[in-house]
């Protein structure tokens, strides 16, 4: 448990979330206007918290906190550069999957606590969706960890110093990207809060600080997911000429831009189709990816 730096991770979360906002604006083709965005943030923050009419106020207001916590823990496991990371556990990649798994109860709490039909529907949708998509995430992590022979993200980055994992295991990457997009509840998998279908869904009742926290959590989640993609598949900080941290930042930004761009391009996946894709295609293929990873490990990485 070396160089545990919660404050650095907190700072990274806030700075990274603003970078993600910038990226969102750029991908949307808008000219970023930080001053206006800050004014908007101030207005939202000044709005009072809403009391839902059910008595599950506690669940309602705890949910954004749990979301932010899960996102921060996931962010802390990402290896940013040699020596700069939040937590360096032996089983850090497992902790990443574990942290992402807590988005599910948070969403359920948000939907249930709001006590509005559409919000509850959103919560249950998310439950079904995430049970299906959390598994490919964990299985792909297994497939990527096998060549490294370690669950420590730093080791997984270092094993790719010659060839990035994306070239070795394209199947795993192809499964991973939609799965993490779903975990970040971004379009085209924004089923729990789909504006057009559920009128805001689980988040429709959030006002003020709650709303800001939810948005923050989503951006930090995207940052953590794209950082982990860069670390697990794109060789992390390895690269010629440029300093390691810059490589990592570039790769993370590229992955985040790809996810956001895909979200703007693709139509929203219907719930039943998303579920049948996950259970009938993604999960069997993820098992296949583990088998392939085993073969590759025996052949090349021993």
């Amino acid at each position: 448990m070396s160089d545990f730096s919660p404050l650095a991770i907190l700072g990274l979360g806030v700075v990274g979330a603003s970078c993600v906002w910038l990226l969102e604006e750029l991908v949307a083709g808008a000219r970023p206007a930080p001053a206006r965005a800050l004014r908007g943030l101030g207005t939202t923050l000044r709005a009072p918290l809403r009391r839902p009419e059910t008595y599950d106020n506690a669940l309602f207001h705890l949910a954004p906190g749990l979301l932010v916590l899960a996102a921060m823990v996931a962010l802390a496991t990402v290896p940013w550069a040699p020596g700069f990371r939040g937590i360096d556990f032996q089983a850090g990649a497992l902790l990443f999957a574990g942290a992402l798994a807590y988005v599910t109860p948070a969403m359920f709490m948000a939907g249930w606590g709001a006590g509005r039909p559409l919000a509850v529907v959103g919560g249950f949708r998310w439950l079904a969706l995430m049970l299906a998509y959390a598994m490919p995430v964990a299985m792909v992590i297994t497939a990527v960890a096998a060549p490294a022979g370690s669950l420590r993200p730093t080791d997984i980055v270092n094993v790719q110093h010659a060839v990035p994992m994306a070239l070795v295991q394209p199947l795993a990457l192809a499964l991973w990207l939609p799965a993490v997009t779903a975990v970040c509840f971004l379009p085209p998998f924004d089923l729990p809060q789909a504006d057009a279908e559920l009128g805001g869904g689980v988040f429709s009742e959030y006002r003020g600080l709650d709303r800001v926290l939810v948005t923050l959590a989503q951006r930090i989640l995207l940052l953590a997911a794209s950082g982990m993609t860069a670390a697990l598949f794109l060789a992390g900080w390895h690269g010629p000429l440029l300093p390691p941290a810059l490589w990592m930042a570039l790769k993370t930004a590229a992955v985040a831009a790809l996810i956001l761009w895909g979200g703007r391009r693709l139509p929203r996946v219907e719930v039943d189709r998303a579920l049948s894709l996950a259970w009938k295609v993604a999960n069997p293929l993820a098992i296949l990816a583990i088998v392939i990873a085993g073969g590759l490990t025996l052949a090349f990485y021993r």
Partner: protein
Amino acid sequence: MSDLATAIVFWPAAALMLGTALYVFITSSMARAGLLLLASLGVEGLVFLALASEFLGFLQLLMMSGEMVIMVFFMVMFMPDPGGLMGMDMTHDKRRSASVAIAIAVGLAVVAVLTDWPARVAGTDAPDVRAIGYEVMGRSMVSFLFAAMTILLAMVGGVLLAKHGGRFGIPAPAGEQRGQEND
């Protein structure tokens, strides 16, 4: 982890774990009960972390999240009053079960405290995750395969039991076909 770090993490985490575990059976809202159980077992992962078993702790976090969320789902489905709005009583034999539980807990705790456990062995580092992998895929391979087969059997058996018509293919009584309006 040092002894001090263990104590700093262990005591609050254990208190939270036991408190939420107790509250599971006090609250009358089913959603809360399930989420509190998730909190209890998730915090148990933190306790494992404090006790230098980080792999098990993270695995516990990951597993319990999925499992308990499914539990919440089923509770909301099968409970007469999932929101707990009527505050109905869902216990029977409260006094007797409480006394049995307290007696057994106290008995076990007394045994735990009074037994002369072997002296503590030095070494508090987390065991190498790789060593656990070799254990699972080496010496304990057969038992691990057995566990895997058990899961497979449970999956098949569970689907068979829960499927329409049950395991003998006998359709449910008329209430089933009429849909959910039947209470």
